[in-house]
């Protein structure tokens, strides 16, 4: 089985899992007392947000290893991870307002957490733009690694601003120092969703990685290059 096919299969399994998550979330998980059905989006929003940040950290780590090992596979992985991260950031930025409108009464607010996700999205876009603007593959990989490492180091600063700036955003419910403060049935649904998103990330990255292999085999033609 080729890498593309493997990626496709993982993605299909992930999408089936995600559909199952929503069957469970809608039919077998209690409705939150204050937020009502709007809270259901949490099972999509939070795992996507976690993977948006994780993907950036993986881009940075791949960058560090690339600078020492000069292995093009690491660069291909970083490129794939950045593109998938962009998609996940888009999911977070779309599901957030859909939840925000009924609960906060506004689609968008300049709250720290929203701003930081938007920044992460811009960071990804900037990273991909730099990749697109360099023709030489070795230089491109090196520049991307430098930018990826800086981006990874920016993530904690973006996070610090969350706790310094006053925020409307719900405080962390699961990933916090004390025990998760939600019923176990919701936690199980959420963990299931996180697993589905992890698979989705792996599936997307595998497909994207396979695509850059094909591209490099055909002389590295890139869109937008004359």
């Amino acid at each position, binding site marked *: 089985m080729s890498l593309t096919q493997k990626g496709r299969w993982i993605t299909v399994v992930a999408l089936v899992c995600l559909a199952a998550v929503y069957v469970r979330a809608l039919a077998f998980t209690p409705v939150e007392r204050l937020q009502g059905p709007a809270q259901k989006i949490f099972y999509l929003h939070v795992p996507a947000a976690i993977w948006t940040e994780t993907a950036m950290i993986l881009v940075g780590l791949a960058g560090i290893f690339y600078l020492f090992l000069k292995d093009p596979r690491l660069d291909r992985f970083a490129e794939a991870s950045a593109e998938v991260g962009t998609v996940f950031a888009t999911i977070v930025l779309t599901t957030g307002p859909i939840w925000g409108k009924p609960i906060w009464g506004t689609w968008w607010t300049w709250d720290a957490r929203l701003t930081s996700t938007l920044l992460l999205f811009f960071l990804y*876009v*900037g990273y991909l733009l730099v990749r697109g603007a360099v023709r030489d593959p070795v230089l491109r990989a090196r520049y991307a690694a430098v930018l990826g490492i800086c981006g990874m180091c920016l993530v904690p600063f973006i996070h610090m*601003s969350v706790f*310094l700036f006053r925020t409307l955003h719900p405080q962390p419910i699961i990933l916090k120092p004390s025990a998760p403060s939600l019923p176990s049935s919701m936690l199980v649904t959420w963990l299931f969703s996180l697993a589905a998103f992890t698979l989705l990330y792996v599936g997307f990255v595998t497909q994207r990685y396979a695509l850059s292999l094909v591209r490099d085999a055909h002389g590295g033609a890139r869109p937008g290059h004359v």
Partner: protein
Amino acid sequence: MGELLAQAWTVARKDLVLEFRTRTALVSAIVFTALVLTVFNFGRDPTAVPTIDLAPTILWVTFTFAAMLALNRAFQLELENQALEGLLVSPLSRTSLYWGKLIANLVFVAVVEAVGLPLFVLFFDVPVGHVLVPLIGVIALATLGFVAVGTLFSALVIRTRFAELLLVVILLPFLVPPLIGAVQVTARLLGGRPLSESVGYLKLLAAYDIVFVSLASFLFRFTVDE
């Protein structure tokens, strides 16, 4: 360490002598700062918005734009006659080359800010006399952060297409954490709040400076080598 600083100073002095003899870039940056401040005056309704509420924003947006303008030219002037190649074959360590560029950029931006701050006070009638020392401290902390990242990125984009545009796009997300800190501290200072209220943001600014100056010193070598 002594030699590193001596080499860095040689590079910085070269840039600064060039800058102060031609003066075009410096004068343009100062005029640009004055123009941005002027434009801000017309970008608000003076009867509806008290200046003091808008003052930190005006100051920091102006300084951010001025810094980005300055950073664009840092490596641009090395492109002519392959001056960058000359620097790279000279017996300079990459770290001292970065530090030299960093020092030259810091002096350049500091001169622009030294003109910009009194103009800001004059145009918007903001009393800063009683908080001048802490205000200059915050400006110095934030500027170091801006310029440290900006110097690295201006070296990174110099060989790409659309270098000027790309620099702004990748740099701005990185400027937001120090910008948030600087604006918050400035607002508290101008509002007559004690400095102790700003400790969290000052720590954020200091941490940002330490992380990104060291990171950029290390990563710079990967951006200039062919």
